[in-house]
Protein backbone atom coordinates (compact mmCIF):
# COMPACT_ATOMS: atom_id res chain seq x y z
CA UNK A 1 0.00 0.00 0.00
CA UNK A 2 1.15 3.49 -0.72
CA UNK A 3 0.27 5.68 2.19
CA UNK A 4 -0.71 9.25 1.49
CA UNK A 5 0.43 11.53 4.22
CA UNK A 6 -1.40 14.81 3.92
CA UNK A 7 -0.60 17.46 6.52
CA UNK A 8 -3.83 19.20 6.03
CA UNK A 9 -5.98 16.12 6.51
CA UNK A 10 -9.05 17.33 8.32
CA UNK A 11 -9.55 15.34 11.43
CA UNK A 12 -12.98 14.13 10.37
CA UNK A 13 -11.82 12.44 7.12
CA UNK A 14 -10.18 9.10 7.27
CA UNK A 15 -7.79 7.57 4.75
CA UNK A 16 -10.44 5.61 2.87
CA UNK A 17 -12.62 8.61 2.50
CA UNK A 18 -9.71 10.68 1.21
CA UNK A 19 -8.87 7.96 -1.25
CA UNK A 20 -12.40 7.72 -2.57
CA UNK A 21 -12.63 11.50 -2.82
CA UNK A 22 -9.48 11.67 -4.89
CA UNK A 23 -10.60 8.76 -7.04
CA UNK A 24 -13.76 10.55 -7.97
CA UNK A 25 -12.15 13.36 -9.89
CA UNK A 26 -11.76 11.54 -13.15
CA UNK A 27 -10.69 12.94 -16.51
CA UNK A 28 -11.68 11.71 -19.99
CA UNK A 29 -9.34 8.74 -20.03
CA UNK A 30 -10.50 7.45 -16.70
CA UNK A 31 -7.46 8.65 -14.79
CA UNK A 32 -8.15 9.95 -11.32
CA UNK A 33 -5.91 12.09 -9.19
CA UNK A 34 -5.33 9.18 -6.89
CA UNK A 35 -4.15 6.88 -9.69
CA UNK A 36 -1.94 9.63 -11.11
CA UNK A 37 -0.24 10.18 -7.77
CA UNK A 38 0.14 6.45 -7.40
CA UNK A 39 1.79 6.25 -10.80
CA UNK A 40 4.25 9.04 -9.91
CA UNK A 41 5.16 7.35 -6.66
CA UNK A 42 5.66 4.05 -8.43
CA UNK A 43 7.94 5.73 -10.98
CA UNK A 44 10.02 7.35 -8.24
CA UNK A 45 10.42 4.10 -6.34
CA UNK A 46 11.28 2.13 -9.46
CA UNK A 47 13.66 4.56 -11.12
CA UNK A 48 15.09 6.18 -8.00
CA UNK A 49 16.15 9.52 -9.55
CA UNK A 50 18.66 11.49 -7.53
CA UNK A 51 16.73 14.67 -6.96
CA UNK A 52 13.16 13.51 -7.17
CA UNK A 53 11.87 16.51 -5.29
CA UNK A 54 13.44 18.89 -7.82
CA UNK A 55 12.08 16.91 -10.72
CA UNK A 56 8.65 16.30 -9.28
CA UNK A 57 6.76 18.40 -11.81
CA UNK A 58 8.78 16.95 -14.69
CA UNK A 59 7.99 13.43 -13.52
CA UNK A 60 4.33 14.25 -13.32
CA UNK A 61 4.41 15.52 -16.89
CA UNK A 62 6.26 12.44 -18.07
CA UNK A 63 3.73 10.12 -16.49
CA UNK A 64 0.94 11.99 -18.24
CA UNK A 65 2.75 11.84 -21.58
CA UNK A 66 3.63 8.18 -21.29
CA UNK A 67 -0.04 7.36 -20.87
CA UNK A 68 -0.60 8.79 -24.30
CA UNK A 69 2.04 6.55 -25.85
CA UNK A 70 0.48 3.42 -24.43
CA UNK A 71 3.56 1.28 -24.91
CA UNK A 72 4.50 -1.33 -22.41
CA UNK A 73 8.02 -1.71 -23.70
CA UNK A 74 10.91 -0.28 -21.80
CA UNK A 75 12.90 -0.03 -24.99
CA UNK A 76 12.06 3.21 -26.78
CA UNK A 77 11.07 2.86 -30.40
CA UNK A 78 11.77 5.03 -33.38
CA UNK A 79 8.64 5.68 -35.36
CA UNK A 80 9.06 5.70 -39.11
CA UNK A 81 6.40 5.79 -41.76
CA UNK A 82 6.21 3.67 -44.89
CA UNK A 83 7.96 6.10 -47.19
CA UNK A 84 10.90 6.47 -44.85
CA UNK A 85 11.08 2.73 -44.51
CA UNK A 86 11.34 2.35 -48.29
CA UNK A 87 14.05 4.96 -48.55
CA UNK A 88 16.12 3.38 -45.82
CA UNK A 89 15.65 -0.07 -47.29
CA UNK A 90 16.78 0.89 -50.78
CA UNK A 91 19.76 2.67 -49.38
CA UNK A 92 20.83 -0.29 -47.24
CA UNK A 93 20.38 -2.61 -50.19
CA UNK A 94 22.62 -0.55 -52.38
CA UNK A 95 25.31 -0.55 -49.72
CA UNK A 96 25.11 -4.34 -49.43
CA UNK A 97 25.24 -4.71 -53.20
CA UNK A 98 28.38 -2.65 -53.30
CA UNK A 99 29.80 -4.90 -50.60
CA UNK A 100 29.09 -7.97 -52.69
CA UNK A 101 25.48 -9.03 -52.31
CA UNK A 102 23.93 -10.18 -55.61
CA UNK A 103 21.21 -7.76 -56.61
CA UNK A 104 17.69 -9.18 -56.74
CA UNK A 105 16.44 -10.11 -60.21
CA UNK A 106 13.37 -8.15 -61.11
CA UNK A 107 10.39 -10.38 -62.05
CA UNK A 108 9.81 -10.56 -65.82
CA UNK A 109 6.59 -9.13 -67.09
CA UNK A 110 4.85 -11.00 -69.89
CA UNK A 111 5.95 -9.41 -73.18
CA UNK A 112 6.17 -10.25 -76.89
CA UNK A 113 8.76 -12.79 -78.11
CA UNK A 114 11.25 -10.33 -79.58
CA UNK A 115 11.34 -8.22 -76.50
CA UNK A 116 11.83 -11.23 -74.32
CA UNK A 117 14.88 -12.32 -76.29
CA UNK A 118 16.38 -8.90 -76.07
CA UNK A 119 15.80 -8.85 -72.34
CA UNK A 120 17.44 -12.19 -71.86
CA UNK A 121 20.50 -11.05 -73.72
CA UNK A 122 20.78 -7.98 -71.56
CA UNK A 123 20.55 -10.04 -68.42
CA UNK A 124 23.28 -12.35 -69.56
CA UNK A 125 25.55 -9.45 -70.29
CA UNK A 126 24.95 -8.02 -66.88
CA UNK A 127 25.80 -11.29 -65.25
CA UNK A 128 29.00 -11.50 -67.21
CA UNK A 129 29.99 -8.01 -66.21
CA UNK A 130 29.47 -8.88 -62.58
CA UNK A 131 31.63 -11.91 -62.68
CA UNK A 132 34.49 -10.48 -64.66
CA UNK A 133 37.43 -10.24 -62.35
CA UNK A 134 39.39 -7.04 -62.18
CA UNK A 135 43.01 -6.50 -61.40
CA UNK A 136 42.96 -5.38 -57.79
CA UNK A 137 46.50 -4.04 -57.88
CA UNK A 138 45.24 -1.28 -60.12
CA UNK A 139 42.95 0.12 -57.51
CA UNK A 140 43.83 2.61 -54.84
CA UNK A 141 44.46 1.01 -51.50
CA UNK A 142 43.28 2.66 -48.36
CA UNK A 143 43.33 -0.24 -45.93
CA UNK A 144 47.07 -0.63 -46.35
CA UNK A 145 47.87 2.89 -45.31
CA UNK A 146 45.24 3.35 -42.66
CA UNK A 147 47.60 2.80 -39.75
CA UNK A 148 50.10 5.21 -41.19
CA UNK A 149 47.51 7.89 -41.78
CA UNK A 150 46.09 7.42 -38.32
CA UNK A 151 49.48 8.07 -36.81
CA UNK A 152 49.56 11.37 -38.64
CA UNK A 153 46.19 12.25 -37.21
CA UNK A 154 44.06 11.56 -40.25
CA UNK A 155 41.25 9.28 -39.22
CA UNK A 156 39.08 7.37 -41.64
CA UNK A 157 37.12 5.01 -39.47
CA UNK A 158 36.98 1.34 -40.34
CA UNK A 159 33.51 1.20 -41.81
CA UNK A 160 34.15 4.18 -43.99
CA UNK A 161 37.44 2.79 -45.20
CA UNK A 162 35.82 -0.48 -46.19
CA UNK A 163 33.11 1.30 -48.16
CA UNK A 164 35.81 3.46 -49.69
CA UNK A 165 37.77 0.39 -50.75
CA UNK A 166 34.67 -1.01 -52.41
CA UNK A 167 34.19 2.27 -54.18
CA UNK A 168 37.76 2.00 -55.47
CA UNK A 169 37.10 -1.43 -56.96
CA UNK A 170 33.96 -0.08 -58.60
CA UNK A 171 36.13 2.63 -60.14
CA UNK A 172 38.47 0.12 -61.75
CA UNK A 173 35.51 -1.83 -63.05
CA UNK A 174 34.00 1.24 -64.61
CA UNK A 175 37.12 2.77 -66.14
CA UNK A 176 39.18 -0.04 -67.63
CA UNK A 177 41.92 2.22 -68.90
CA UNK A 178 43.32 2.91 -65.43
CA UNK A 179 46.85 1.62 -65.04
CA UNK A 180 47.38 2.28 -61.37
CA UNK A 181 45.77 4.62 -58.91
CA UNK A 182 46.20 6.18 -55.52
CA UNK A 183 43.85 7.73 -53.01
CA UNK A 184 44.54 11.43 -53.27
CA UNK A 185 42.32 12.65 -50.48
CA UNK A 186 39.08 14.25 -49.54
CA UNK A 187 37.83 17.79 -49.92
CA UNK A 188 35.07 18.92 -47.59
CA UNK A 189 32.25 20.84 -49.16
CA UNK A 190 29.12 22.32 -47.74
CA UNK A 191 26.52 19.73 -48.66
CA UNK A 192 28.65 16.67 -49.20
CA UNK A 193 32.32 15.80 -49.50
CA UNK A 194 34.49 14.99 -52.50
CA UNK A 195 36.59 11.82 -52.35
CA UNK A 196 39.33 11.94 -54.94
CA UNK A 197 41.49 9.31 -56.60
CA UNK A 198 44.58 10.06 -58.67
CA UNK A 199 45.26 7.64 -61.51
CA UNK A 200 47.62 6.98 -64.37
CA UNK A 201 46.02 5.74 -67.55
CA UNK A 202 47.45 3.08 -69.78
CA UNK A 203 46.57 5.06 -72.87
CA UNK A 204 46.10 8.75 -73.16
CA UNK A 205 43.83 10.31 -75.77
CA UNK A 206 45.41 12.36 -78.51
CA UNK A 207 45.73 16.06 -77.87
CA UNK A 208 43.18 18.19 -79.70
CA UNK A 209 44.68 19.71 -82.81
CA UNK A 210 43.44 23.22 -82.34
CA UNK A 211 44.39 23.62 -78.74
CA UNK A 212 45.37 27.07 -77.50
CA UNK A 213 49.07 27.62 -76.67
CA UNK A 214 50.45 26.65 -73.28
CA UNK A 215 47.77 24.03 -72.66
CA UNK A 216 49.49 20.80 -71.78
CA UNK A 217 48.73 17.58 -73.57
CA UNK A 218 46.95 14.79 -71.79
CA UNK A 219 49.53 12.66 -70.04
CA UNK A 220 52.17 15.34 -69.71
CA UNK A 221 53.07 17.91 -67.08
CA UNK A 222 50.16 19.08 -65.03
CA UNK A 223 47.85 16.63 -66.76
CA UNK A 224 50.08 13.64 -66.12
CA UNK A 225 47.56 12.21 -63.70
CA UNK A 226 43.85 11.91 -64.21
CA UNK A 227 41.51 12.54 -61.31
CA UNK A 228 38.24 10.85 -60.44
CA UNK A 229 35.79 12.15 -57.93
CA UNK A 230 32.84 10.65 -56.06
CA UNK A 231 30.52 12.34 -53.63
CA UNK A 232 28.71 9.42 -52.06
CA UNK A 233 30.95 6.44 -51.39
CA UNK A 234 28.05 4.23 -50.35
CA UNK A 235 26.39 4.07 -53.72
CA UNK A 236 27.58 6.92 -55.88
CA UNK A 237 29.06 7.01 -59.35
CA UNK A 238 32.64 7.99 -60.15
CA UNK A 239 33.13 11.00 -62.36
CA UNK A 240 36.26 11.67 -64.37
CA UNK A 241 37.62 15.19 -64.18
CA UNK A 242 38.81 16.74 -67.42
CA UNK A 243 42.32 18.02 -67.93
CA UNK A 244 43.03 21.48 -66.63
CA UNK A 245 44.24 24.50 -68.58
CA UNK A 246 46.68 27.14 -67.28
CA UNK A 247 43.98 29.77 -67.59
CA UNK A 248 41.80 27.84 -65.18
CA UNK A 249 44.61 27.52 -62.67
CA UNK A 250 45.32 31.22 -62.85
CA UNK A 251 41.71 32.18 -62.29
CA UNK A 252 41.30 29.69 -59.46
CA UNK A 253 43.96 31.56 -57.48
CA UNK A 254 41.60 34.49 -57.16
CA UNK A 255 38.51 32.51 -56.27
CA UNK A 256 37.68 32.61 -52.55
CA UNK A 257 34.59 30.42 -52.21
CA UNK A 258 33.58 27.27 -50.41
CA UNK A 259 32.75 24.21 -52.50
CA UNK A 260 29.05 23.46 -52.42
CA UNK A 261 29.31 19.75 -53.11
CA UNK A 262 27.48 19.88 -56.41
CA UNK A 263 29.82 19.47 -59.37
CA UNK A 264 27.52 21.23 -61.79
CA UNK A 265 27.15 24.33 -59.65
CA UNK A 266 28.29 27.72 -60.88
CA UNK A 267 31.04 29.35 -58.89
CA UNK A 268 29.85 32.68 -57.49
CA UNK A 269 31.74 35.43 -55.78
CA UNK A 270 33.68 38.50 -56.79
CA UNK A 271 35.84 36.99 -59.52
CA UNK A 272 34.07 35.74 -62.59
CA UNK A 273 34.98 32.07 -62.88
CA UNK A 274 33.38 31.10 -66.17
CA UNK A 275 33.54 27.34 -65.67
CA UNK A 276 31.65 25.17 -63.18
CA UNK A 277 32.68 23.73 -59.86
CA UNK A 278 34.16 20.71 -61.65
CA UNK A 279 36.87 22.82 -63.25
CA UNK A 280 37.51 24.70 -60.02
CA UNK A 281 37.94 21.40 -58.20
CA UNK A 282 40.41 20.16 -60.81
CA UNK A 283 42.39 23.39 -60.69
CA UNK A 284 42.61 23.31 -56.90
CA UNK A 285 43.73 19.69 -56.99
CA UNK A 286 46.48 20.67 -59.41
CA UNK A 287 47.62 23.51 -57.16
CA UNK A 288 47.55 21.40 -54.01
CA UNK A 289 49.42 18.50 -55.60
CA UNK A 290 52.13 20.69 -57.02
CA UNK A 291 52.79 22.41 -53.70
CA UNK A 292 52.49 19.61 -51.24
CA UNK A 293 53.50 16.22 -52.59
CA UNK A 294 56.82 15.20 -51.06
CA UNK A 295 59.10 12.26 -51.28
CA UNK A 296 62.19 11.38 -49.29
CA UNK A 297 65.47 12.57 -50.78
CA UNK A 298 66.99 10.27 -53.38
CA UNK A 299 63.80 8.30 -53.74
CA UNK A 300 63.63 9.22 -57.38
CA UNK A 301 66.45 9.64 -59.86
CA UNK A 302 66.84 10.64 -63.44
CA UNK A 303 66.98 7.67 -65.80
CA UNK A 304 70.35 6.87 -67.31
CA UNK A 305 69.34 7.57 -70.86
CA UNK A 306 67.90 11.01 -71.19
CA UNK A 307 64.71 11.06 -73.15
CA UNK A 308 64.89 14.22 -75.22
CA UNK A 309 61.17 14.54 -75.63
CA UNK A 310 60.35 14.58 -71.99
CA UNK A 311 63.15 15.88 -69.78
CA UNK A 312 61.00 15.51 -66.69
CA UNK A 313 60.77 11.77 -66.53
CA UNK A 314 61.89 10.34 -63.23
CA UNK A 315 62.04 6.78 -62.15
CA UNK A 316 62.33 5.03 -58.86
CA UNK A 317 65.81 4.81 -57.50
CA UNK A 318 66.37 1.13 -57.01
CA UNK A 319 69.20 1.71 -54.65
CA UNK A 320 67.08 3.72 -52.27
CA UNK A 321 67.33 2.50 -48.72
CA UNK A 322 65.77 4.35 -45.83
CA UNK A 323 68.25 5.87 -43.45
CA UNK A 324 69.12 3.48 -40.72
CA UNK A 325 69.29 6.05 -38.01
CA UNK A 326 65.80 7.26 -38.81
CA UNK A 327 66.83 10.67 -40.07
CA UNK A 328 65.15 12.21 -43.07
Amino acid sequence: HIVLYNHRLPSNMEFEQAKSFLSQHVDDNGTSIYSHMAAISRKIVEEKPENAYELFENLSLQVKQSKLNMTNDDIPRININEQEKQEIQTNMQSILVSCGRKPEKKPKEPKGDDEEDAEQEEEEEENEAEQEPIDVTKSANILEYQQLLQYAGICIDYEESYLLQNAFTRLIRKFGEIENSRFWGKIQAINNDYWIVEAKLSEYPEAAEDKPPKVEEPGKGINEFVYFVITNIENGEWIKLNDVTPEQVKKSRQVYRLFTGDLTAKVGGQTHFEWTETELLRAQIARISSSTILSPADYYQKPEEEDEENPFIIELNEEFAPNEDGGI
Partner: protein
Amino acid sequence: MEITTAFNNRGLNLQEQCTVKSSLIEIKLNENFKSTRFWGKIFGIENDYLIIEATSMNHQIQHKYFFSIDGGLNFAQLPIVEPWMNAKCNKIAAMFTGITSYVYEDEELKDKSENEDDENEDDENEEEANGGNEDEQDQEKKDSENDEPPKIEYKLRELARIAWTISSINDECCIVPKDSLVLTSSKIMQKNRNFTGLNRNDANKLDSYLHFRTPRDPYSVSKYRKATAMNDTEFLDPITNDLPKGCWRLQSKSAGLEVNVKNLLWPGFEFKYCVGDSQYVQGYFGNGIRQNDLVFMI
Protein backbone atom coordinates in the same frame (compact mmCIF):
# COMPACT_ATOMS: atom_id res chain seq x y z
CA MET B 1 34.82 4.10 -20.94
CA GLU B 2 34.63 5.00 -24.59
CA ILE B 3 35.66 8.42 -25.72
CA THR B 4 35.18 9.63 -29.25
CA THR B 5 38.41 10.96 -30.60
CA ALA B 6 37.80 11.55 -34.27
CA PHE B 7 35.89 14.40 -35.84
CA ASN B 8 35.86 15.57 -39.42
CA ASN B 9 38.21 12.78 -40.47
CA ARG B 10 40.90 14.10 -38.15
CA GLY B 11 41.62 12.10 -35.07
CA LEU B 12 44.01 11.08 -32.39
CA ASN B 13 46.54 8.37 -33.01
CA LEU B 14 46.76 5.34 -30.74
CA GLN B 15 49.30 6.85 -28.40
CA GLU B 16 47.30 10.00 -27.91
CA GLN B 17 44.12 8.03 -27.39
CA CYS B 18 45.68 6.14 -24.48
CA THR B 19 47.16 9.17 -22.81
CA VAL B 20 44.08 11.32 -23.22
CA LYS B 21 41.80 8.63 -21.86
CA SER B 22 43.97 8.21 -18.77
CA SER B 23 44.33 11.94 -18.22
CA LEU B 24 40.59 12.31 -18.55
CA ILE B 25 40.07 9.85 -15.73
CA GLU B 26 42.69 11.65 -13.65
CA ILE B 27 40.93 14.96 -14.13
CA LYS B 28 37.59 13.41 -13.23
CA LEU B 29 39.04 12.20 -9.97
CA ASN B 30 40.46 15.55 -9.03
CA GLU B 31 37.57 17.73 -10.07
CA ASN B 32 34.04 17.41 -8.89
CA PHE B 33 32.54 17.96 -12.27
CA LYS B 34 29.55 16.07 -13.42
CA SER B 35 30.86 15.54 -16.89
CA THR B 36 34.22 15.72 -18.58
CA ARG B 37 34.97 14.99 -22.18
CA PHE B 38 37.70 15.21 -24.73
CA TRP B 39 36.98 18.49 -26.45
CA GLY B 40 39.34 18.41 -29.40
CA LYS B 41 42.62 19.54 -30.80
CA ILE B 42 43.92 22.90 -31.93
CA PHE B 43 46.78 22.76 -34.40
CA GLY B 44 49.85 24.89 -33.88
CA ILE B 45 53.10 25.27 -35.78
CA GLU B 46 55.46 23.79 -33.20
CA ASN B 47 52.99 21.87 -31.04
CA ASP B 48 49.35 20.91 -31.11
CA TYR B 49 47.06 21.57 -28.18
CA LEU B 50 44.89 18.73 -26.86
CA ILE B 51 41.94 20.05 -24.88
CA ILE B 52 39.71 18.47 -22.25
CA GLU B 53 36.53 20.15 -21.13
CA ALA B 54 34.76 19.86 -17.79
CA THR B 55 31.18 21.04 -17.61
CA SER B 56 28.87 21.87 -14.77
CA MET B 57 25.22 22.65 -15.24
CA ASN B 58 23.34 24.56 -12.65
CA HIS B 59 21.40 27.74 -13.16
CA GLN B 60 24.00 28.44 -15.82
CA ILE B 61 26.28 26.37 -17.96
CA GLN B 62 29.91 26.68 -16.99
CA HIS B 63 33.01 25.13 -18.47
CA LYS B 64 36.55 24.63 -17.33
CA TYR B 65 39.30 23.69 -19.79
CA PHE B 66 42.54 21.78 -19.57
CA PHE B 67 45.24 21.76 -22.20
CA SER B 68 48.23 19.62 -23.05
CA ILE B 69 51.11 20.28 -25.43
CA ASP B 70 53.00 17.04 -24.95
CA GLY B 71 50.59 14.63 -26.58
CA GLY B 72 48.27 14.12 -23.65
CA LEU B 73 50.76 13.23 -20.95
CA ASN B 74 50.25 16.29 -18.77
CA PHE B 75 47.22 18.50 -18.62
CA ALA B 76 47.07 21.93 -17.02
CA GLN B 77 44.19 24.29 -16.52
CA LEU B 78 43.70 27.16 -18.92
CA PRO B 79 43.35 30.73 -17.61
CA ILE B 80 39.89 32.21 -17.30
CA VAL B 81 38.79 34.41 -20.17
CA GLU B 82 38.71 38.11 -19.31
CA PRO B 83 36.92 40.88 -21.22
CA TRP B 84 40.06 42.64 -22.49
CA MET B 85 40.97 39.52 -24.45
CA ASN B 86 37.96 39.92 -26.71
CA ALA B 87 39.12 43.03 -28.53
CA LYS B 88 42.67 41.79 -28.97
CA CYS B 89 41.91 38.26 -30.05
CA ASN B 90 39.32 39.31 -32.59
CA LYS B 91 42.01 40.96 -34.68
CA ILE B 92 44.38 38.02 -34.83
CA ALA B 93 44.09 35.53 -37.66
CA ALA B 94 47.49 33.90 -37.46
CA MET B 95 48.13 30.24 -36.79
CA PHE B 96 48.85 29.27 -33.24
CA THR B 97 52.57 28.85 -32.73
CA GLY B 98 52.41 26.11 -30.15
CA ILE B 99 54.57 27.95 -27.66
CA THR B 100 52.45 28.91 -24.67
CA SER B 101 54.48 31.93 -23.66
CA TYR B 102 54.46 33.52 -27.09
CA VAL B 103 53.34 37.15 -26.91
CA TYR B 104 51.20 38.64 -29.63
CA GLU B 105 52.44 42.14 -30.38
CA ASP B 106 49.72 44.68 -30.87
CA GLU B 107 50.32 46.06 -34.35
CA GLU B 108 48.28 49.22 -33.75
CA LEU B 109 50.21 50.23 -30.67
CA LYS B 110 53.47 49.86 -32.53
CA ASP B 111 52.26 52.07 -35.34
CA LYS B 112 50.86 54.64 -32.92
CA SER B 113 54.13 55.10 -31.08
CA GLU B 114 55.96 55.49 -34.40
CA ASN B 115 53.45 58.09 -35.55
CA GLU B 116 53.75 60.04 -32.34
CA ASP B 117 57.48 60.38 -32.87
CA ASP B 118 56.82 61.62 -36.39
CA GLU B 119 54.18 64.04 -35.17
CA ASN B 120 56.50 65.50 -32.61
CA GLU B 121 59.09 66.13 -35.29
CA ASP B 122 56.49 67.73 -37.54
CA ASP B 123 55.28 69.94 -34.72
CA GLU B 124 58.75 71.22 -34.08
CA ASN B 125 59.19 72.04 -37.75
CA GLU B 126 55.86 73.82 -37.92
CA GLU B 127 56.61 75.85 -34.85
CA GLU B 128 59.76 77.12 -36.36
CA ALA B 129 57.95 77.96 -39.59
CA ASN B 130 54.71 79.44 -38.29
CA GLY B 131 55.47 81.15 -35.03
CA GLY B 132 53.09 81.31 -32.13
CA ASN B 133 49.63 80.03 -33.17
CA GLU B 134 50.56 76.41 -33.39
CA ASP B 135 52.01 76.53 -29.91
CA GLU B 136 48.71 77.13 -28.21
CA GLN B 137 46.97 74.33 -30.04
CA ASP B 138 49.70 71.92 -29.23
CA GLN B 139 49.58 72.89 -25.59
CA GLU B 140 45.88 72.13 -25.44
CA LYS B 141 46.41 68.77 -27.02
CA LYS B 142 49.08 67.82 -24.55
CA ASP B 143 46.98 68.94 -21.63
CA SER B 144 44.07 66.75 -22.64
CA GLU B 145 46.36 63.81 -23.05
CA ASN B 146 47.68 64.26 -19.54
CA ASP B 147 44.16 64.30 -18.08
CA GLU B 148 43.37 60.74 -19.18
CA PRO B 149 44.50 58.05 -16.77
CA PRO B 150 47.24 55.89 -18.25
CA LYS B 151 45.71 52.88 -20.00
CA ILE B 152 46.66 49.47 -18.64
CA GLU B 153 48.56 47.65 -21.35
CA TYR B 154 47.73 43.94 -21.40
CA LYS B 155 50.10 41.54 -23.03
CA LEU B 156 48.31 38.83 -24.95
CA ARG B 157 50.01 35.52 -24.50
CA GLU B 158 49.21 32.49 -26.56
CA LEU B 159 47.68 30.70 -23.59
CA ALA B 160 45.11 33.44 -23.18
CA ARG B 161 44.36 33.34 -26.88
CA ILE B 162 43.77 29.59 -26.69
CA ALA B 163 41.40 30.03 -23.78
CA TRP B 164 39.50 32.74 -25.61
CA THR B 165 39.31 30.69 -28.81
CA ILE B 166 37.97 27.64 -27.02
CA SER B 167 35.32 29.56 -25.16
CA SER B 168 34.27 31.30 -28.41
CA ILE B 169 33.98 27.98 -30.18
CA ASN B 170 31.88 26.57 -27.37
CA ASP B 171 29.74 29.64 -27.27
CA GLU B 172 29.03 29.59 -30.99
CA CYS B 173 29.15 25.91 -31.80
CA CYS B 174 28.19 23.62 -28.91
CA ILE B 175 24.74 22.22 -29.49
CA VAL B 176 22.34 19.67 -28.03
CA PRO B 177 19.25 18.02 -29.50
CA LYS B 178 15.91 19.45 -28.49
CA ASP B 179 14.41 17.91 -25.37
CA SER B 180 17.69 16.52 -24.18
CA LEU B 181 17.93 19.05 -21.36
CA VAL B 182 15.16 19.87 -18.93
CA LEU B 183 14.63 22.69 -16.49
CA THR B 184 13.52 21.69 -13.03
CA SER B 185 11.14 23.74 -10.96
CA SER B 186 14.01 25.53 -9.25
CA LYS B 187 15.49 26.51 -12.62
CA ILE B 188 18.33 24.02 -12.60
CA MET B 189 19.30 22.61 -15.98
CA GLN B 190 19.64 18.88 -16.14
CA LYS B 191 20.02 16.08 -18.64
CA ASN B 192 16.66 14.64 -19.50
CA ARG B 193 16.70 11.06 -18.28
CA ASN B 194 13.76 10.19 -20.48
CA PHE B 195 15.24 11.54 -23.65
CA THR B 196 14.66 8.75 -26.13
CA GLY B 197 16.24 10.47 -29.08
CA LEU B 198 15.01 12.34 -32.10
CA ASN B 199 13.13 10.57 -34.83
CA ARG B 200 14.45 10.57 -38.39
CA ASN B 201 12.47 13.58 -39.54
CA ASP B 202 13.45 15.79 -36.67
CA ALA B 203 17.07 14.74 -36.68
CA ASN B 204 17.46 16.02 -40.23
CA LYS B 205 16.16 19.48 -39.45
CA LEU B 206 18.38 22.22 -38.10
CA ASP B 207 15.68 23.58 -35.81
CA SER B 208 15.81 20.47 -33.65
CA TYR B 209 19.16 21.57 -32.27
CA LEU B 210 19.76 24.21 -29.63
CA HIS B 211 22.83 26.02 -28.37
CA PHE B 212 24.38 24.52 -25.28
CA ARG B 213 25.01 27.77 -23.47
CA THR B 214 23.28 29.99 -20.94
CA PRO B 215 20.38 31.43 -22.95
CA ARG B 216 20.82 34.87 -24.51
CA ASP B 217 18.10 35.08 -27.13
CA PRO B 218 15.26 37.20 -25.72
CA TYR B 219 12.65 34.57 -26.55
CA SER B 220 14.47 31.78 -24.77
CA VAL B 221 15.38 33.98 -21.82
CA SER B 222 11.73 34.79 -21.30
CA LYS B 223 10.90 31.10 -21.50
CA TYR B 224 13.63 30.41 -19.00
CA ARG B 225 12.20 32.91 -16.55
CA LYS B 226 8.67 31.62 -16.84
CA ALA B 227 9.73 27.99 -16.83
CA THR B 228 7.47 25.44 -15.32
CA ALA B 229 7.47 21.79 -16.19
CA MET B 230 5.27 22.47 -19.19
CA ASN B 231 7.44 24.64 -21.38
CA ASP B 232 10.88 23.52 -20.46
CA THR B 233 12.01 22.51 -23.92
CA GLU B 234 12.55 25.93 -25.41
CA PHE B 235 14.70 27.62 -22.85
CA LEU B 236 17.89 27.31 -24.91
CA ASP B 237 18.77 29.46 -27.93
CA PRO B 238 17.93 27.94 -31.31
CA ILE B 239 20.68 27.79 -33.92
CA THR B 240 18.56 28.77 -36.90
CA ASN B 241 18.79 32.48 -36.14
CA ASP B 242 22.56 32.61 -36.10
CA LEU B 243 24.26 35.09 -38.40
CA PRO B 244 25.53 34.92 -41.07
CA LYS B 245 22.57 33.05 -42.44
CA GLY B 246 23.49 29.61 -43.63
CA CYS B 247 26.43 29.12 -41.33
CA TRP B 248 24.98 25.88 -39.95
CA ARG B 249 24.95 22.88 -42.29
CA LEU B 250 23.57 19.41 -41.84
CA GLN B 251 24.73 16.28 -43.67
CA SER B 252 23.30 12.83 -43.26
CA LYS B 253 24.57 9.35 -43.97
CA SER B 254 22.95 5.91 -44.00
CA ALA B 255 19.72 7.20 -45.51
CA GLY B 256 19.30 9.88 -42.89
CA LEU B 257 19.98 7.78 -39.82
CA GLU B 258 23.34 9.35 -38.99
CA VAL B 259 23.52 13.11 -38.86
CA ASN B 260 26.48 15.51 -38.93
CA VAL B 261 26.01 19.14 -38.06
CA LYS B 262 28.77 21.61 -38.87
CA ASN B 263 29.27 25.32 -38.41
CA LEU B 264 31.02 26.95 -41.35
CA LEU B 265 32.33 29.78 -39.17
CA TRP B 266 34.59 27.36 -37.36
CA PRO B 267 35.71 24.77 -39.91
CA GLY B 268 36.73 21.72 -37.96
CA PHE B 269 33.79 21.56 -35.58
CA GLU B 270 31.48 18.58 -35.89
CA PHE B 271 28.40 17.35 -34.04
CA LYS B 272 27.48 13.71 -34.64
CA TYR B 273 24.20 12.07 -33.77
CA CYS B 274 22.44 8.79 -34.61
CA VAL B 275 18.66 8.67 -34.87
CA GLY B 276 17.10 7.03 -31.84
CA ASP B 277 20.14 7.44 -29.61
CA SER B 278 20.10 9.43 -26.43
CA GLN B 279 23.84 10.07 -26.82
CA TYR B 280 25.57 12.51 -29.11
CA VAL B 281 29.16 13.61 -29.57
CA GLN B 282 30.76 16.81 -30.71
CA GLY B 283 34.28 18.07 -31.00
CA TYR B 284 36.69 20.40 -32.74
CA PHE B 285 39.78 19.53 -34.74
CA GLY B 286 41.08 22.63 -36.43
CA ASN B 287 43.45 25.55 -36.36
CA GLY B 288 41.31 27.70 -34.12
CA ILE B 289 40.83 30.52 -36.61
CA ARG B 290 37.34 31.86 -37.14
CA GLN B 291 36.18 32.13 -40.72
CA ASN B 292 35.18 35.79 -40.62
CA ASP B 293 34.85 36.10 -44.39
CA LEU B 294 32.13 33.50 -44.55
CA VAL B 295 29.58 35.91 -46.02
CA PHE B 296 31.67 36.16 -49.19
CA MET B 297 32.27 32.47 -49.47
CA ILE B 298 28.83 30.92 -49.57
